[in-house]
């Protein structure tokens, strides 16, 4: 798949933003006033910014409101609903916390739930696609959720929770890569089933339908060199998990230093997740590629 910046930014930022909202909704940390304002501001910038980024790739963003209509069947529509509900609930919750010093816990719990649901629905947009075996796995929502929770905990300063969550997310990431690398081959789909000619002999793509490119090739056929991908995986893993764990696990005195390291952990995690997301898209093989000879290497 084409690793479009808009979707990478969207899933990375909004995942983190809703992760933070989740913890804020649970009262972790329990903050009010200006401190609450800063926390909520960061969470909203990430969540809403991500959502806005996602509209950049739309052909007609002015019609985006229509996306709320199909919640019965469309995960994208459901995501829209969840996001709006989460943002509204958490918005009310934030007003209470920031301006009234009130903590409406029920609202917070509900907001947290919908924040997590938003991340889940986002992941399901990808998971539902049988056409992309690397996404069509239970590990995909596991990955989105674990990343969001780990990132959220990190940003919420919940070190004790963040550490195990980061370790879980790291484990999910490794499992996801391992299973994903085998997904297309084990999906049962190849050029033989794609053309129905597989029974007659081996099938190879000959002339493409057009000598030039097209939307499908631009959108779905993206070739990442294996070595390049391996390197990027290591970098992404180090940044997303290894370094943040290191940063928050170092026993240090001094609030400033602690905050600096926490900030570094967040930035590193963010960069690592973005790299992971780039790979998530760039390495995803759409079965349409088979029709264009993508199995030829």
């Amino acid at each position, binding site marked *: 798949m084409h690793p479009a910046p808009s979707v990478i930014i969207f899933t990375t930022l909004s995942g983190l933003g809703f992760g933070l909202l989740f913890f804020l909704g649970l009262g972790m940390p329990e903050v009010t006033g200006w401190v609450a304002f800063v926390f909520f501001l960061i969470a909203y910038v990430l969540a809403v910014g991500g959502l806005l980024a996602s509209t950049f790739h739309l*052909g007609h963003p002015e019609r985006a409101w229509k996306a709320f209509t199909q919640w019965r069947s469309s995960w994208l529509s459901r995501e829209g609903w969840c996001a709006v509900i989460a943002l509204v609930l958490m918005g009310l919750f934030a007003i209470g916390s920031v301006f009234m010093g009130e903590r409406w816990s029920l609202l917070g719990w509900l907001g947290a739930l919908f924040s997590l649901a938003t991340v889940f629905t986002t992941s399901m947009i990808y998971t539902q*696609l049988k056409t992309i075996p690397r996404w069509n796995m239970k590990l995909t929502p596991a990955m989105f959720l674990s990343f969001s929770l780990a990132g959220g905990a990190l940003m919420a300063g919940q070190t004790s929770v963040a550490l195990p969550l980061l370790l879980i997310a790291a484990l999910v990431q490794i499992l996801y890569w391992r299973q994903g690398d085998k997904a297309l081959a084990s999906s049962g789909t190849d050029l033989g089933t794609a053309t129905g000619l597989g029974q007659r002999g081996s099938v190879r793509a000959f002339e493409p339908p057009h000598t030039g490119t097209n939307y499908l090739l631009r959108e779905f056929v993206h070739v990442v060199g294996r070595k390049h991908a391996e390197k990027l995986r290591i970098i992404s893993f180090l940044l997303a998990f290894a370094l943040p764990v290191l940063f928050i696990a170092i026993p240090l005195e001094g609030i400033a230093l602690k905050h600096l390291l926490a900030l570094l952990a967040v930035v590193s995690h963010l960069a690592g997740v973005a790299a992971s997301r780039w790979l998530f898209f760039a390495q995803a093989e759409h079965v349409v590629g088979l029709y264009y000879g993508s199995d030829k290497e």
Partner: protein
Amino acid sequence: MTQLPTSTDRKMGLVIDLDTCVGCHACVISCKGWNTENYGAPLSDQDAYGADPSGTFLNRVHSYEVLPTESPAQLIHFPKSCLHCEDAPCVTVCPTGASYKRVEDGIVLVNESDCIGCGLCAWSCPYGAREMDMAEGVMKKCTLCVDRIYNENLPEVDRVPSCVRTCPAGARHFGDLGDPESDVSKLVAERDGMDLMPEMGTKPVNKYLPPRPKDQIEDQIDILAPLLAPVAEEPKGFLGWLDKTLEKL
């Protein structure tokens, strides 16, 4: 509407004969012509006279080589457009309801005024049947020429998709695949029509007729008696045979 109808009154679709398609691209361009001028936005072209021309097409003809173990390699021309699946994933993923499957005939369409151009339907389609139009920012796909097949401004004989009307080799057939008595259904039954990527569970309406077995003449034909038994070994004998045979004429 994003929801699929539980059943459609008819299952209109195409049957494509891979035994007959010569790969001439007539269907590709006829489709481009009709659908540029008709349903929805025109099918645009970018860098039309430049280094990297690329345009929206609703139908493209691929070609594949099949390499049997015992006989020579074969070349198969392979036209591909929307298969109007019964279980069309492109419809259910659509967030706005722009994509829908018609109850009356099963045609999968995009209502362009509702399309936000998110591309998710194209992601969900295993066949590459949907292409985003770069000029208009909406998703384009085969309409099965819904503006031809019922069009009272066209003579009845022309109420077929433009690709079917134009196909010189007659490799494309149009009809109701939900009716077992229709010509297309009979053709599918006779020729073992097949689905593409059946494992995807999309239940395509369009069927493909597989190529007939090829390169079997040496196994099928006895090259000696009676077909080619020599009438004589020598030219002289041949003239003798000639005389005898001419007598009988």
